């Protein structure tokens, strides 16, 4: 599981290379690569202060989406990048502290 997590974080953080996800990667790798204080704050709030219940009630992510994202992450981590982009295509996004993020990345970042 830990290896999968690293694989995922490698994809999201390095291949997708969004700064949000880079902060996820840096968390896993113990590195300190931050592009802004804002991202540091986001990391803390995103991973430490959001519960599964919040995903449903506050961010309107359906139970089905939560389960499918987790399943994707566990079984097909290589497909996560595509799933994130598909979310943006289909407007399956949510706003956290002003950040417009894909539902898939929010679920994975929060739940794993």
């Amino acid at each position, binding site marked *: 599981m830990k290896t999968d997590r690293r694989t995922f974080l490698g994809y999201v953080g390095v291949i997708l290379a*969004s700064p949000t996800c880079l902060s996820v990667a840096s968390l896993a790798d113990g590195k300190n690569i931050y592009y802004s204080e804002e991202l540091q704050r986001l990391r803390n709030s995103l991973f430490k202060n959001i519960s599964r219940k919040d995903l449903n009630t506050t961010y309107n992510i359906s139970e089905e989406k939560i389960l499918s994202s987790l399943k994707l992450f566990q079984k097909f981590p290589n497909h996560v990048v595509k799933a994130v982009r598909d979310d943006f295509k289909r407007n399956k996004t949510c706003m956290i502290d002003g*950040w*417009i993020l894909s539902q898939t990345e929010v679920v994975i970042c929060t739940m794993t």
Partner: protein
Amino acid sequence: MYDDLNAHNKPLRKKAKVAVIGSGPAGLVLAKKLANKGVSVILVSSGSLSYDQKHQELYEGTIIDNIPLVPLSASRLRMFGGTSNHWTGHCGPFDDIDFKIRGFIPESGWPLNFNDLEKYYKEAQDLLELGSYKYSYKSSALPESFAHLGDFESSYLSQNPFRFGPEWRDFFKRSKNCYVLENANLTRFILSDNGRKLVSLEVKSLDGQVGKIECDSVILACGGVENARLLLNSSLSSRLPCLGHYYAFHPRVVGAELHLAKPLANNNVFQWHPSDGSSKKAFLKYSENFQFAEKQPNYAMNLLNRHFKKSPEFLAALRLRNRIQGDSYEGDVKDDLLAVLSNLGALLGEYNRHKSSESIHTLNLMTYIDPTPNYHNVIKLNNDKDELGMRRCTAHWKPSDDDIEYTYNFNIKFAQMVGRNGFGRVKINPMIRDRATFNKLVQDSSGGGHQMGTTRMSKSKYSGVVDTNLKVHGVDNLFCAGSSVFPTYSWVNPTMTIVALSAKLADHITST
């Protein structure tokens, strides 16, 4: 030739084929083009070649709720060359869609289309000395990570702060067909008995000298607010139900920031850079197909390097540089020199930061809003009077609920495009969603200098003030030029369209 109304002891009487009121870009383009075609022109210029505070004070007025925040007496300049004496020179043609009727935007659409203006845009490009006429970037000109924009496309503006007054003063000095009357302010329209024709004009100087001008045609070219104020002060106001209405300016709000996956060089194409004979800057905007499909207006995104906020000493240095270059200068040389010399170390550091090619990870996103036409946004006369006895005006502008919603949507769509393409993530400022905080963002923006819409172009006097040829409805020989005639406003700065419409009007006058 130049003349000064104050130099005449007796009331002055002058005749010409055309009288152009106002010596800003619109008035000067008209007067020059008409004079070159052999038409006798009187150009009435309030003030003279140099800035004068007493004339500037004629522009004072009131703004409701401080939107825009820039005072009416500061956003415009009342002197030969007009506001071009302090503008930044950002130019571009309006987009094709700006002229079209868009069913989802009430009262959108011009009574002419882009093709009617295109040859005049090319003429304006030359007059403004903007280099070659190119306004769509090939994707190869954008950074690789911006190659696939989906529902967005790139566009750009040119920049050349062309100073019409200093650049063209010699032409008008030599011109035999154009008589420039300085220190003359229009104070009265005199109409024929049936009210359908202007017979003459009365002008007055601040020193009390008066003059009378007789001509076949009169063109008001005094700007987006002043054209309306002059007409509202006249007996024509009761005949023009839309006069002063549909007032707008260009609100621009920094509503989000873009955190990039791959850093950009500091001198990227989204900042001003030399290209095709002028300075250019890329913007990202909705494609036309997307606007119609998603019922969104013509907004554009300006990607700003984040360290654009300049220190007071840096601004002082820029003012001094402008003074050395001979541009208009509004400052105190002693104060500015002191600010520069006492902060030399910090100033050099700041200069190096601006000039260095260091990579940037985060850009501010400034939304260029295409405001919706709104009858209730209006220039009205108030009870104060200026030195000449003309009533001053009050500007009322409020963003509509649609404007706020469209701005929010634009930022969300932009963020989704960024995520889809994988070149970063966007953080939205929640202030763009709420009316009170949205107003604050508008106040904080640099917008406010582009007054538009108060004598809008229309097919009927019930939906505007001038017709397609810029002739005032119901008056045979009175025309308006300038941004006051815009029925919609685009995201693009207005000067190039002002110049193009003026060039077109000159052709119309000489063809009739």
